[in-house]
């Protein structure tokens, strides 16, 4: 792509962007589908509806209109990094148009659905696509300047800015979750609407990134770390009060949270210490079974009932012991072999659980009917009333899981910035050198397994209660691979990355249910493509990005830096030669 865009001459930059913006605007007003599709009318009145009143537009057409206006404005306003903004807006518009074009075409049975049929014209998607392309080429013509650095502000103002930023993020998240409504018979185009919304969100975030806002906010949050953490926590807890506060989304968010917590634990083992673990979900499973056996479920053969916090702690301890057991023989094993050993342990766990080893796992019947957590008489699966609003059932689990994720994040962050964390990173980079530097690699590796497994065990205990069943088939090799994929997709060693990865892998199948037959195929393809094109993940840790993408921690490609160094060196040589001659 960059080879194509490099062909655009400077003079064409502005006109192309202006045309692009105009085209997006027109596309928003044009009809998008030539006839009413079999499943029902395409949303946002896209069928044969030419709008002459722009404010009546909704959904993706409204987004496209805003993009078009923004592009036009930015083209003519003296903004330092307008190239980047225009490029982001262009990609966003392109994505929206493409998604809708593909959906309408495939539902409508042919290109005629988006061009012309039976004497009707509906070129909206094509115009939008061309407009997006024009914007991208135009932005290349204008050139991509450096991202500007926005100024620091007085402390109170920065607090306010952070508050606004995080509240906006919360709003964006809840809108993304509910975009398109529930996929299903009542809204057959939910997948398309959701994807188009993602396109819009991507374009918006890209534009903000280009202007420098995202970098500014992340630096601010680094400066006021404690405040940011508190605000983030409050925002997360406020999710049930937004439009995503339904029983359904609380359930999904809760599951995402549990897997995110487990993924962060895995991040300790894989991301920090570099110990590839392919059987990690077994730790979660052991925690779940221990907690189930101590919960007083009818099928639990132990007959002991303990209150949840006690059971959870016991579960974490027992899982920690197993973590040490798994960790110790792996001390002498490295790299790929470590992966296979952990895989073997994981399979042993799954097999044994399936066979009801020690009568503790219920075998094929699992341990059903685990009672919900109850604190002070309040059952966690009941709806509650808080601040006058009625919150759906499952919200208590959501709050608990939010706290769990916060706890896990805190543990991770503290470890990462401590001596132990640095020791792990050293081991990950080169174990022999680390040992030569005096790090006790054996102890450190076991510590990694211990910590990681305990966190997973804790998550597993909550999981068992939330789901109400502890069954061996929730902890198979496929789940281990999914967890690993979440960590890698999000970015190894990075906390927001693990959460994003888990969120993506669990929310996408929910929103895009029309593809469920292809779910595993797409998953496999995604693994291949990510390792090929973006192995550092979506939200990479700065060091990891450097390692994978051939960049220095500041984000400059290594070749550039090296070239510069060579040039400088030559320059020095010349000037010294010159002075000598």
């Amino acid at each position, binding site marked *: 792509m960059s080879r194509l865009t490099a062909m655009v001459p400077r003079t064409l930059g502005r006109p192309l962007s202006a045309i692009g913006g105009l085209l997006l605007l027109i596309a928003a007003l044009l009809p998008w589908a030539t006839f009413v599709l079999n499943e029902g009318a395409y949303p946002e009145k896209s069928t044969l509806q030419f709008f002459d009143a722009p404010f009546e537009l909704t959904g993706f057409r409204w987004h496209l209109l805003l993009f078009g206006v923004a592009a036009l404005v930015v083209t003519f306003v003296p903004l330092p990094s307008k190239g980047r903004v225009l490029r982001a807006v262009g990609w966003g518009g392109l994505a929206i148009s493409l998604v809708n074009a593909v959906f309408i075409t495939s539902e409508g049975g042919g290109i005629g659905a988006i061009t012309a049929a039976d004497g009707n014209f509906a070129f909206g998607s094509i115009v939008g696509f061309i407009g997006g392309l024009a914007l991208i080429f135009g932005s290349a013509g204008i050139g991509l300047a450096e991202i500007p650095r926005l100024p620091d502000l007085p402390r109170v103002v920065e607090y306010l800015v952070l508050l606004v930023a995080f509240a906006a993020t919360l709003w964006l998240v809840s809108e993304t979750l509910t975009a398109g409504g529930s996929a299903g018979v009542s809204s057959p185009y939910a997948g398309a609407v959701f994807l188009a919304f993602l396109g819009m969100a991507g374009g918006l975030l890209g534009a903000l990134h280009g202007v420098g806002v995202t970098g500014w906010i992340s630096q601010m949050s680094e400066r006021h770390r404690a405040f940011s953490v508190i605000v983030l926590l409050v925002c997360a807890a406020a999710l049930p009060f937004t439009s995503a506060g339904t029983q359904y989304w609380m359930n999904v968010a809760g599951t995402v949270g549990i897997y995110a917590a487990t993924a962060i634990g895995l991040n300790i083992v894989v991301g920090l210490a570099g110990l590839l673990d392919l059987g990690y979900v077994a730790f979660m499973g052991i925690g779940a079974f221990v907690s189930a056996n101590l919960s007083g479920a009818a099928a639990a053969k132990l007959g002991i009932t303990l209150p949840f916090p006690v059971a959870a702690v016991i579960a974490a301890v027992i899982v920690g012991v197993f973590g040490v057991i798994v960790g110790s023989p792996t001390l002498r*094993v490295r790299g790929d072999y470590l992966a296979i050993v952990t895989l073997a342990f994981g399979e042993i766990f799954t097999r044994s659980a399936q066979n009801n080893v020690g009568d503790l796992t219920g075998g094929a019947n699992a341990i059903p009917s685990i009672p919900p957590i109850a604190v002070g008489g309040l059952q966690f699966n009941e709806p509650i009333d808080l601040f006058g609003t009625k919150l759906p059932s499952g919200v208590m689990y959501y709050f608990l899981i939010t706290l769990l994720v916060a706890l896990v994040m805190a543990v991770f962050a503290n470890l990462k910035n401590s001596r132990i964390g640095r020791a792990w990173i050293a081991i990950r980079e080169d174990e022999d050198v680390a040992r030569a530097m005096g790090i006790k690699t054996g102890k450190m590796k076991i510590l990694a397994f211990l910590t990681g497994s305990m966190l997973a065990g804790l998550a597993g205990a909550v999981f068992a209660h939330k789901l109400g069943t502890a069954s061996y088939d929730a902890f198979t090799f496929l789940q281990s691979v999914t967890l690993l994929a979440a960590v890698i997709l999000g970015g190894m060693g990075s906390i927001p990355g693990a959460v994003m990865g888990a969120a993506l892998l669990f929310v996408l199948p929910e929103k895009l249910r029309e593809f469920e037959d292809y779910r*595993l195929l797409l998953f*496999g393809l995604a*693994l291949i493509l990510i390792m*090929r094109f973006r*192995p550092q993940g979506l939200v990479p840790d700065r060091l990891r990005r450097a390692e*994978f993408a051939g960049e220095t921690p500041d984000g400059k490609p290594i070749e550039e830096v090296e070239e510069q160094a060579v040039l400088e060196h030559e320059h020095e040589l010349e000037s010294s030669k010159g002075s000598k001659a």
Partner: protein
Amino acid sequence: MTTLLQQIANGLVLGATIGLIAVGYTMVYGIIQLINFAHGEIFMTGAFGGLAVWRFVPGVKDMDWYFALPLMLVGGVVVSVTIAVLMERFAYRPLRNAPRLAPLITALGVSIGLQEAVRIWFPDADRSQSFPREFVKTQVSIGPIEVPATGLLLIAVSIALGALVQFYINKSRLGRAMRATSQDPDTARLMGVNPDRVIVLTFVIGAILAGVAGVLYGMHVQTLGVRAGFQNGIFAFTAAVLGGIGSLPGAVVGAFVIGMVKTLGGQYLPGGTQYDYVWIFVVLILVLVFRPQGLFGESEKVRA
């Protein structure tokens, strides 16, 4: 006593299949230090290739077995080799210089992707497929035990092909090139060896064996599902490790041992057949921890 002999025989038959797959694993790991998780799927697609020839090529069903069986084998091998070459070219070659994790994850992705691709696009592959065994229906009795003729065929082919490949690697020019590349790729390149070609050749040889194994295995078990590759693949890797990664005879011997561990373990160790896989994994862990170079490997072959 009969049971013991019978289980040993069963173990050897299972080991034969695993051995053919293990050779591919050990060769690829020896040359580019990659655990090709998707090798089991090469085995599976080879089997489906043979099945496709039987089902879709007109006239095969009515042929005599000495025409049909080779045709099926050819079909299976063509499919498995194609998939292996594509895999190497598009999934693994771009990651030649990436950190260790990348090709491993990619291999996992390829494995999952292939299983699903076959399930979705091979007609009816959602359910198990029936695999013909028209040709070699007989049951051979050796003393008190019974072995199906397909089982004996598997053992014979496995040993024969293993020996053939070993001979090729030791005596031929390309084999020498392969050994050179696996010992020291840079020096090999200085000596005029094209590493890309050698690596593709390694994949091809591994795929041929896996494809043959797939078709014969399908005939032996008379049924085929898309998940058949995954489990056999893990056993094969265990066998390769047990025998010593990089050592071909080691892989074959290791495979026979693993086969017998499964059958004898399921028969005699506590837990019965429910835990037979567990014993294999226990063996794997013990080998990796206490003797990572395996039975026949050299210590220096163990890379970090």
